[in-house]
């Protein structure tokens, strides 16, 4: 189907359509899964990192180590 649709179009039209669709999908993926990063601008509160690295809770348990207030904000 893609082959037939692309075959009949000029290269510029096909690339423009693909680029628009690509941007749309990228935006949708970002919006759905990545719009609220834990590390904003590659930075986290030092206390949270300290808790993660030095806290005595096992680093490999639970589904989230975020403080409950942080979770609420997200």
């Amino acid at each position, binding site marked *: 189907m893609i082959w037939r649709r*692309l075959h009949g179009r000029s290269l510029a039209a096909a690339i423009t359509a693909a680029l628009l669709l690509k941007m749309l999908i990228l935006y949708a993926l970002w919006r759905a*899964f990545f719009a609220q990063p834990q590390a904003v601008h590659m930075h986290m509160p030092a206390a949270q990192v300290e808790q993660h690295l030095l806290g005595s809770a096992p680093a490999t348990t639970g589904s989230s180590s975020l403080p409950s207030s942080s979770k609420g904000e997200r």
Partner: protein
Amino acid sequence: MNPLDDVVNLSRLQFAATALYHFLFVPLTLGLSWMLVIMESVYVMTGKEIYRDMTKFWGKLFGINFAMGVATGITLEFQFGTNWAYYSHYVGDIFGTPLAIEGLMAFFLESTFVGLFFFGWTKLSKVQHLGVTFLVAFGSSLSALWILIANGWMNHPVGAEFNYVTMRMELTSIVDVIFNPVAQVKFVHTVAAGYVTASMFVLGISSYYLLKARDIPFALRSFAIAAGFGLASTLSVIVLGDESGYTAGEVNKTKLAAIEAEWETQPAPAGITVVGWPNDQTEHTDYAVKIPYVLGLIATRSVDTPVTGIKELKQGNEVRIRNGMKAYAALTRLKSGDKSPEARAAFDALKDDLGYGLLLKKYAPKVIDATEAQIKLAVNDTVPHVAPMFWSFRIMVGLGLLFLFIFSCSFFFLIRKRLAAQRWLLKLAVLAIPLPWVAAELGWVVAEYGRQPWTIAGILPTHLSASTVPVGSLYFSLAGFLGFYTFLLVIEMTLMIKFARKGPSSLHTGNYHWEQPAAIAAMAANPATI
């Protein structure tokens, strides 16, 4: 399995899948841009229209790849803040500079001049347009440079120091980061691999035209440039790969030992295991076929320096883990409010081994109370699984030698004017088109899997780098990415095959095969021929 292990492994899988997909587009852009510079330079120097047509036609295929590949790397940056929050925090001060320069300078330079390349043929002079093509190639290489500086730092973190107040690595010397030997070697090896990929692409498609006996002058000239550039690039990749082995021997000893399945420290100069069956359980390579001296010469450039084996490296790592436990205790003391000079001095003396102490976190949450058994588990974690490294590397090298054979034969028969009789070579060149991508992807497997168990070598373990996002979210975003990249790949392949089949006739100059009366008649009778 522990739920968060799933999160770490799923995050790794997602990053690996997106990075590998992204790198399907990158090498062709890196290599083909410079081939366009060569073709257009010949056009500017000789004035022969056929070289302009070559630049335009291969430029069209470059444009398809560029359009499909552009912004596919941004998905990796999406993942940094969301899936790898702790890693992002740790490296933020270091990565900010190279990633910002890459985004602002290299990417925009490349993208702006790509537009001028396609729309400037009638608006710019010959030399000006050549300048534009050069800047496209330069921009794409510059983009790769900054990304590989960041990646090189992950393998060899220089020019930075851990700050226990901010709990992150902080930049101490941007010059050291930029001139990191690992980054420099990685850069030249990666771009040279891109040149090989593009050369095989042009060689294979030109061979297809030669096999079909159409557009012969166009195909022969393209074939000649691809054979020459490909031969030089393959030799460069081999020499730079050797240099990469030497650098690994200097700064990534564990990775080198895993690649070579070097379990024991052999007397210098060490022999290289060409093939064999590495067994992680018995720490032995079964059925090993060795060539004496070669590994020692490659890895140390000497005949009297030994290559440290995995067992000895593990002993050294055990010492560092025990020091890391003390560093962890000293850091805990500092963070609990003891700012005395003694507390600072205790931490400063051992802070280089803090990362090794953090390896224990997986088994002993408090680290300082780890048992001997837990220390042994952490020691075993310091070496990646050997078999995937061993085989990925050997398949990559084997493919490199195949490329050397293909380009050497192509060059030889071309200058002897005996190419037409070598149909086997032309067929082999067509079949070999996808293989440089396989080699490049395996190269990344060796580089990144070989860095395990670290995200930042010796500093931050992978299992402490990942965020704590819900597993369901990771599954859905992974599926979304796979669908997204597969969609792009299908579009790319569809357009590439369509225009490669059309060949230079797609330029509508009236000079090429499908524009000739006989071909038009044949095409009208059977449209499936094009």
